């Protein structure tokens, strides 16, 4: 179970998270949606301790992440797979070596098992045959899938996806969506998925939460979000800026800084 409790985070004067609370139940897949720059990636980084909250906390499996000691934090990270928005592959290593990094650190895998898992993970993201390629030799979408393969390779209990399907073609998007579903259904993985793609969100998630103004504006089942009457949510899912503008009291949405502006 992942719980974000009243998270606050600012960078200098810029308030990004302003009381974000969100719970991902055991075995659930939750989609986190929101405007570009709303702070979704920032929220996700708090879960594995890449960022420290100014206030509030994150709990994974009931343990308080910000107060973990280094060894305990690494222990936690062995149970969490993180898919970076821009893949973040190690560019001095081949794809196979990238995947091996997590497997080696996880411990308990023999050499053969590591190879087997690398092949299996690459197959899942449809990247067979790219083991020996360097990241620079891959397309953007391929890199993204290699990053995804790296996160799933060591069999984590939690998966955090930062826009796993942005920049992929429709067919590959469906493949990845199915992969996310399979991780839940076959392996019981608990996932938090950041996405801009509402179709994906409806398809893969048990619940959807919309991040706006530094906190969760609305959370519900895909059906509830689809039928939301909140103008901002409705405007977002239907892609209608005029609704959002109306719902946010005329504030420009793409400035993305409503919370910080109010403080000035």
């Amino acid at each position, binding site marked *: 179970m992942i719980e974000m409790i009243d998270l606050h985070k600012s960078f200098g004067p810029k308030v990004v998270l302003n009381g974000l609370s969100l719970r991902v139940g055991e075995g659930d897949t939750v989609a986190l949606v929101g405007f570009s720059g709303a702070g979704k990636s920032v929220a996700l980084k708090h879960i594995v301790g*890449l960022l420290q909250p100014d206030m509030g906390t994150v709990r994974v499996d009931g343990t308080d992440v910000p107060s973990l000691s280094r060894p305990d934090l690494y222990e936690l*990270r062995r149970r969490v797979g993180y898919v970076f928005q821009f893949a*973040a*592959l190690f560019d001095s290593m081949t794809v196979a070596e990238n995947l091996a*990094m997590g497997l080696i*650190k996880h411990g308990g895998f023999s050499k053969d098992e590591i190879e087997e898992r690398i092949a299996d993970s690459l197959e899942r993201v449809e990247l067979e045959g790219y083991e020996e390629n360097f990241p620079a030799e891959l397309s953007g979408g391929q890199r993204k899938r290699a990053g995804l393969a790296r996160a799933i390779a060591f069999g984590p209990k939690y998966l955090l996806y930062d826009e796993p399907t942005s920049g992929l073609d429709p067919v590959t998007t469906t493949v990845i969506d199915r992969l996310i579903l399979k991780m839940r259904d076959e392996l019981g993985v608990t996932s938090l998925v950041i996405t801009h793609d509402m179709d994906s969100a409806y398809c893969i998630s048990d619940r959807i939460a919309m991040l706006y103004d530094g906190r969760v504006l609305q959370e519900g089942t895909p059906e509830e979000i689809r039928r939301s009457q909140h103008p901002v949510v409705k405007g977002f899912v239907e892609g209608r800026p005029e609704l959002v503008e109306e719902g946010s009291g005329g504030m420009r949405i793409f400035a993305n800084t409503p919370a910080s502006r109010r403080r000035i």
Partner: protein
Amino acid sequence: MTARTATWARPFAAVGRSAGGFFAAFGRFGTFFVEMLRSLRDVGTWVPLLVGQMRHLGVDSIPIALFLAAFTGIVLALQASYTFTGAVPLYFVGALVGKTMILELGPVLSGLALSGRVGANIAAELGTMRVSEQIDALETLAYNPVAYLVVPRVLAGILMFPVIVIFANAIGIVAGWITAINLLQMSTDDFIRGLRLFYEPFDITFSLIKATSFGLVVTAVGCFEGFATKGGAEGVGRSTTRAVVISSMLILVFDAFWAVVLLQP
């Protein structure tokens, strides 16, 4: 804030700010350094990477250091004979070449050359890894990035700089000797006599102490600047420049420091 400061006070405020910035940076470097010492415990992470870095940062740097040393040796021999002509016996050329090479120019010139080659290389590589979130990715895969990236580089610097400097000293002296016998009509015996004249075993120790400290400075500053990189390609460029400038300055500061501490009668 700035608007409130009276005109006359502004220069002082600026000095205060940059001094504050200096101490803040110093504090951050201190924290980084302590983190590095702590990460030494993570033996399993850095040991397998050490040899690769020793080769990459050390062995591959030998050619440039030798190139520099050879030309320095030639110039030293010629300048010595030019200065000494008539006044001092010619075999003093050997003394001057040996002493200067070992005590000062071998370590310092190699250090400066390596701050350009090694320091810039480290800062650019780690800076790129920082801005492309590869360092965060290491974290999420449960690696300690300091143990994985910083410790092997800094240890490689500490271990390999002395080796490079030994080679540089030797080549500088050999180049001086070749110059002396070919251009200065000196005999090998004369040159060696000069070389031995003021030689102290401590000279080598001194040279190696310097080299070790320069190895530490160049690699640690490179790693620090790389890790502190912010904001894209421009940020990487900035870090690289800062790494070279700061480590070059620190090399000269340490150079003076060791002279004051170890050479004062």
